[in-house]
């Protein structure tokens, strides 16, 4: 089962990173979210995989490691805050820049195209 668990994390990392490397904001956010699943599961596995162990005192003498759980719990909540921030940043970026592209050159190119279009229109009006 350890092998399966590790492979799952590997697949999540693979998909997450691939999405993060896309050129538009939304896939990047999806990728980040997926990547944070992978990271949380990875951190959680630092306490080893424990099936049917007690999480609360007094139910069994065999306990799951509580420390990684506590760390991951806050990581999940903060991960949400960060995802939210990034996605709002993406919205704001699109509103201000008019594009959701994350490649700096692309933005410049688009602005240039817009400018040349405007200039052409202005010329047409004149002629």
């Amino acid at each position, binding site marked *: 089962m350890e092998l399966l668990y590790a492979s799952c994390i590997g697949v999540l*990392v693979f998909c997450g990173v691939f999405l993060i490397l896309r050129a538009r904001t939304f896939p990047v956010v999806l990728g980040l979210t*997926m990547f944070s699943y992978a990271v949380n599961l990875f951190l959680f596995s630092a306490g080893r995989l424990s099936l049917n162990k007690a999480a609360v005192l007094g139910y069994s003498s065999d306990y799951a490691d509580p420390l990684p759980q506590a760390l991951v719990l806050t990581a999940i*909540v903060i991960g949400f805050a960060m995802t939210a921030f990034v996605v709002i940043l993406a*919205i704001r970026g699109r509103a201000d820049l008019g594009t959701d592209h994350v490649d700096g050159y692309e933005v410049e190119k688009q602005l240039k195209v817009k400018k040349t279009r405007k200039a052409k229109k202005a010329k047409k009006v004149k002629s």
Partner: protein
Amino acid sequence: MTLLWIPLLSLLGSIISSMSGKLTRNQSTRLTLLMPIIALIMTISLAPTVFSGEVLRETFTWIPLLGIDIAFRLDGLALLFVFMILVIGILVIFYARFYVSSKDSLPKLFTYLMLFMTAMLGIVMSNNVIQLWFFWELTSISSFLLISYWWHKSEAREGAIMALAVTGAGGLALLAGLLLLGNIVGSYSLDVILASKELIQNHSWYEVTLVFILLGAFTKSAQFPFHFWLPHAMAAPTPVSAYLHSATMVKAGVFLLARFYPVLAGTDTWFILVSFTGLTTLLFAAYVALFKHDLKGLLAYSTISHLGLITMLFGLNSELAAVAAIFHIINHATFKASLFMATGIIDHETGTRDMRKINGMWRYMPYTATLAMVAAAAMAGVPLLNGFLSKEMFFAETLHQQLLGSMSWLIPVLATVAGAFAVAYSARFIHDVFFNGEPVNLPKQPKEAPRSMRLPIEILVALCLVVGIIPNFVVDDILSAASQATIGGQVPEYEVALWHGFNLPLLMSGIAVCGGLLLYSQRRFLFQFQASLPSLNAKKLFDKVVLAITTWCQVKVERIENGSLQRYLTLMFVVVLVFAGWPLFEMSQLGGQKELTPIDVFNAMGAALLIIGAISTVIWYSNRVVSLIMLSVVGLMASIAFTRFSAPDLALTQLTVEVVTIILLMLALFFLPQHSPRESSSARILRDLGISGALGIVVASICYALVTRPLDSISEFFLANAKTGGGGTNVVNVILVDFRGFDTLGEICVLGIAALGIYKLLINLPLLMPKSDSKGRPWAKERYPILLASISQSLLPLALLVSFYIFLRGHNLPGGGFIAGLVTAVAFILQYIAHGSNWIAQRLTINYRKIIATGVAIALFTGVGSWFFGKPFMKTWFDYFNIPLIGEIELASALIFDLGVYITVVGSTLMILASLGRLTTNEPKEEVSI
């Protein structure tokens, strides 16, 4: 505590004067003067102890592991400087009250001046070299503020930038030097460093260390070739120049020489570097000063020249020369401060500083003229004045050295030449300004300055005279104390006296005076000769160099940082790949000794669903809604995985966060395009698949290696102490609110900050709201389905009850503030979805910012609260109570902390979603408080 109070009072003065904006100018001045006067009284009360040879110390440990303490130390040298800084500072503040016109802000000037005073006091009193460096940098910054006080003038801004660049660069060199010094000695404490002369001078790093420290000192005290910033710093108001260039800023450099004299001096390297730099500066600046038509320009170069003299004296490697240097530091401070102030009066009353225009001032301002003439005579080194005494000592010292072998006679000759130039420019200051015919085209009709403005000059000039005539009565104590501290041992026999009989130094003085007057009488030819020389504009050169450096940097930065997120992330992932992947190849075996658990059907199914979800997300990523739904499958499987592997708290958190995240992303999709165009080239896709695949393999391998190795955890401690120490059986929750409560506090702060950042990002957002969906279909008319609305409304109390239950039981059973907060948030979000934000706003006016602040405050004060019981921060208290009807219950202070967490989570989550959701309402905007 006394020592700490001296710089602290000055800092307090800075804060007080910054708040005195509403007072009258006189009240503001009095208030500002109060603190340095108290500090001066304290210093005077400490003086007898220091004079008796004792060194006062005060240490507060700060970062003991790094050897950094807050440590103060008052020996003779420090005492001398504290005196100068405070006395001249008080006089300058008093003078500035009358100098600064009513248009300019006096409190602003006072704030900067007092900040600068703090920095200077900090430098001279530090007993830790890192702390010394901190205050050193503070002088650079506060002098930048002072020089750019008239920020509307471009020369003030440029002068300030130049001073900051030069002294800041020197500060970096100094830091390097001090770190090296600390490494050689093994301690950053000045006491230890000053006691390790042998160790330092025999160390192979000695030369490097010396050069770095000297770079710091020379840039600060404007030694050639770093002198060029000082004349440009004259764009500051004259009181600032009087303070910076007489007793403080530039003296910090020579203070550094004096401070490290016991351990760095005495070698040939020291002699060559220090004395020749000093000599060059002395000669060069004295020569240039004669040709400056601007009064302050003349004084600026004269200051550089005198600093050169002091530097050279330190460089001569003779203890008597060091005494002379200390003495000249005192004398230069007194006469130069008074000369600057007199220049300020002339500038103030005539409206110009050009000596070609200002002539014959004797008739208009006889009183100021007399004061200025006495001070200028002291600068020239005329007998009966203090400048004469230290100059005699300087001449005598140049005669007594054999450092250049058979060419040693050259040094006294050059010293005499520099002396002659000093006489010449002093003569020019006196004759050109106060006599020499009538004024030419003055912007103002000159008149005598008010009495109060002259008072500080009177005090300083009186000091020049008293020291010059009866030196033994006035400066003997402080001079011998400071010299002893500088030399670091027994002070040699020396005699400061007006009359030593007819000897060679007296002859040199005589030659200098006659030669200087002769030079001045021939000034026409000299001016013509100087005008024919090609001029080198230091500022233009500086600007060119700065421009070249910044352009070079910009080109390099732009090459790396081209604005493409894809490129940055690719680089980052490749670096991670290398660093995380490399150690794997060095491991002999991936799997560990731990016994593997068998795969059961449920786990295999879960894993399959998770993998299918993840891969579907990628495959359909261009159709964003589908991709998002696939992503939610992954999130759901993750939370099921947490349940399966005995982590109910995590499962609950993941589930609720999943709901909130997906709703948020759905909402975000409304404002973003519905499709991602497939625009990557095949090569790019191949590359990205390669990187992400490799990273996936590396992470999976690490994970496998990790989970197959036996666990040696520190969690035994938490398990053993959760009930007895934290009062709860849910160990995860006890860790969050008790053992690692401080981390949790930080985390809810991050959550709050993220929410506030989102709030800020969404203010004034230009709306790009689509009128229809991507296929051109208009939105449904039924915005809020009635079924959903009524069900959600009736669900709300139930949901709140559940969340309250989860919250309460959190300490002992799965649950707690985080999860309860998320459940509450989800319940409210459902209301928003079902009814729209206007409907909510009509019924419920909630300011989410205040809620977040309340939550964080509750958590913080629960932590602070334990202080009142004499316990450390965040210490939990709990006890059991027996309440009738309910039975025995446990109350713990951690519950209140968890309440803070709960409130912050609710506030932040709702703020994020409500802020964004509000933008979707097309209805006319009302004042919705979020």
